[in-house]
């Protein structure tokens, strides 16, 4: 109907955009392009770079171990994204439902977000270390054998849980605002109709919050792929048997432990492609299930 575009000055707008664009170009795009260039070289610590063309790509794409890592990372991302969203949505919902102490609950729920990932990982280790963990004893009392240094599946779960735990805060921050902006009359209608709490959350709130949820899916996906390095590094070192060797850790180790920059760059380009494709799929999916309008 009406427009917000009230200014015309092209030069002005260029000036306004310049800092962001410039910083993006210089410090984000240019290094990324350089990384792409490096991926075509055999380049390792302090040694002469040798142009090898696509050899690094060929190496990785034919390496079944790497394939496993890709699948593992995607699985990990799915678990983390779903876990974070479900848990955050539920806890946000519960807090939304109570009258007293909302703020206290909220602050409590979001604090891990303020914690640096490395510390988060360390603190989490205190909880669940197979022999030293505070919670290990109680969990084992329940008849569950905590053995994630040897058991790949458990290790995967532990790293995912840590990653989820750390990211809840960020999600709750966005979800609570979104949930609070849902008109009360919808809640009241649902209550009069006898719609159960859970059903209200799933069938009423979640769809209405979909723009926020979609934003969070994107952010969480990026987090799951790029922001979870510290948990793997500190908890499992990618093991056991590569069970937690997700791409970002693998790439980091390739670059900064093994100092194979060529291969590491290739891995980063491939990681970028994987994430890019996933994003594309996500956008397509949400386009189809397009929102209900403003």
């Amino acid at each position: 109907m009406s427009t917000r575009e009230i200014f015309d000055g092209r030069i002005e707008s260029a000036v306004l955009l310049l800092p962001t664009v410039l910083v993006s170009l210089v410090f984000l795009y240019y290094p990324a392009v350089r990384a792409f260039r490096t991926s075509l070289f055999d380049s390792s610590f302090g040694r002469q770079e040798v142009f090898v063309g696509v050899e690094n790509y060929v190496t990785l794409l034919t390496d079944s171990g790497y394939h496993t890592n890709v699948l593992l990372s995607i699985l990990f991302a799915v678990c983390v994204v779903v876990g974070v969203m479900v848990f955050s949505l539920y806890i946000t919902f519960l807090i939304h439902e109570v009258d007293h102490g909302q703020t206290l609950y909220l602050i409590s729920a979001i604090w891990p977000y303020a914690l640096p990932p490395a510390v988060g990982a360390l603190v989490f280790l205190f909880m669940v270390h197979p022999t030293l963990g505070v919670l290990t004893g109680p969990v084992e009392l329940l008849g569950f054998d905590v053995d994630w240094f040897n058991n790949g599946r458990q290790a995967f779960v532990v790293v995912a849980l840590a990653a989820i735990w750390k990211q809840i805060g960020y999600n709750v921050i966005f979800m609570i605002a979104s949930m609070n902006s849902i008109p009360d009359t919808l809640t009241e209608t649902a209550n009069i109709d006898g719609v159960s709490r859970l059903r209200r959350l799933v069938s009423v709130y979640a769809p209405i919050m979909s723009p926020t949820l979609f934003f969070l899916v994107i952010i969480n996906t990026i987090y799951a792929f790029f922001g979870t390095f510290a948990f793997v590094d500190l908890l499992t070192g990618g093991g056991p048997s590569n069970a937690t060797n997700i791409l970002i850790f693998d790439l980091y180790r390739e670059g900064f432990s093994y100092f194979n920059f060529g291969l590491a760059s290739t891995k980063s380009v491939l990681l970028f492609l994987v994430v890019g494709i996933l994003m594309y799929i996500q956008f397509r999916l949400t386009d189809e299930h397009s929102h209900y309008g403003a």
Partner: protein
Amino acid sequence: MTRIQLQDLRKEFDDVTAVDGIDLTIEDGEFLVIVGPSGCGKSTTLRLLAGLEHATDGRIRMNDRDVTGIEPKNRNIAMVFQNYALYPHMTGRRNISFGMKSAGEFTDREIEKRVDQASETLDIADLLDRKPQAMSGGERQRVALGRAIVRDPDAFLMDEPLSNLDAKLRIQMRAELTKLHSELGTTTVYVTHDQTEAMTLGERVVVMEDGRIMQVDTPQVLYDFPEHRFVAEFIGDPAMNMIDVSLETGSAVHDAFRLPLPTGGAYSEEWTEANRAAVLGIRPEDLYLAKERPNLGQTTFTATVDVTEPLGDSLLLHCSVGESKFKMEAEPRATIEPADEIEVMYDPARLHLFDPETGECRYHSEQSTASLERIENTPEP
């Protein structure tokens, strides 16, 4: 269908008393309208009925069952909100069926049957597959109604369901609501701040102010025999003129005129004391231009026209007489202009006197016995 009784109902919020001791019986199948200015506690009353608020005090009974502490979903009522409260992400059909599905008391087939039935009643079959944002305001309102009727509740509660619609649509929906009610016969409590809506829809109308009930009556009785200055001014558009007068035996005296008051039952001795101050109430349509009704030949007085407003079907005159201002209606095509002096006549049967302090009505020039009779004669709701 349900008979609903409110007994000394009150609701206090932290610092305000929103509902201040209400006693009211809503008859089975009745269409009751609650009207009043903003903040008078209409919505709160309705929400108490729905169970969305907890009464601070008092009881609510439905069919003699005490539901005061019962949860909304167990009261078997349906509510329609001003903003429709449709789920934006669901189609019309899902919006209508969602509540039933949740309740889980209905089979899928039954749900489908009822939705179809409701959509036929409301003529919304073609809206069922659209989402709310693809519907106009009126269509949304209709879907919201569909959602309410489909569950066949004991009572409908509606909180200003039409006030988000534009004028034309509001009139149309008003008629549809009346029709719907006559078809379904479900007890309905309808909240509005619009007196026209109250008058046209309500079998009985409750006028509220400040959390209290000022009067409950059929629309025409409210209009003709307001028991309180507040009701008199609230009901009727343009509002009843209120002119400060002093009373002398048998007359209301104003600087500029002296109106004889027809004798009759309804005013007490003390009101005949000389020089007692009172407020004279006359509705704009009970004032005439003397020249338009030459044959009535009654007391007249002279006033000055301040502003004229053509309303199409009449010409609204804003006039002054002495210190007092009043409004009156003239023939639509009368050629009257501001500053004209006019000769004004009134309908002696339609005078009211109010206590200037309490606002209570002390006198209707039409015999109160007659009026009472009329009240009793009004068709059963």
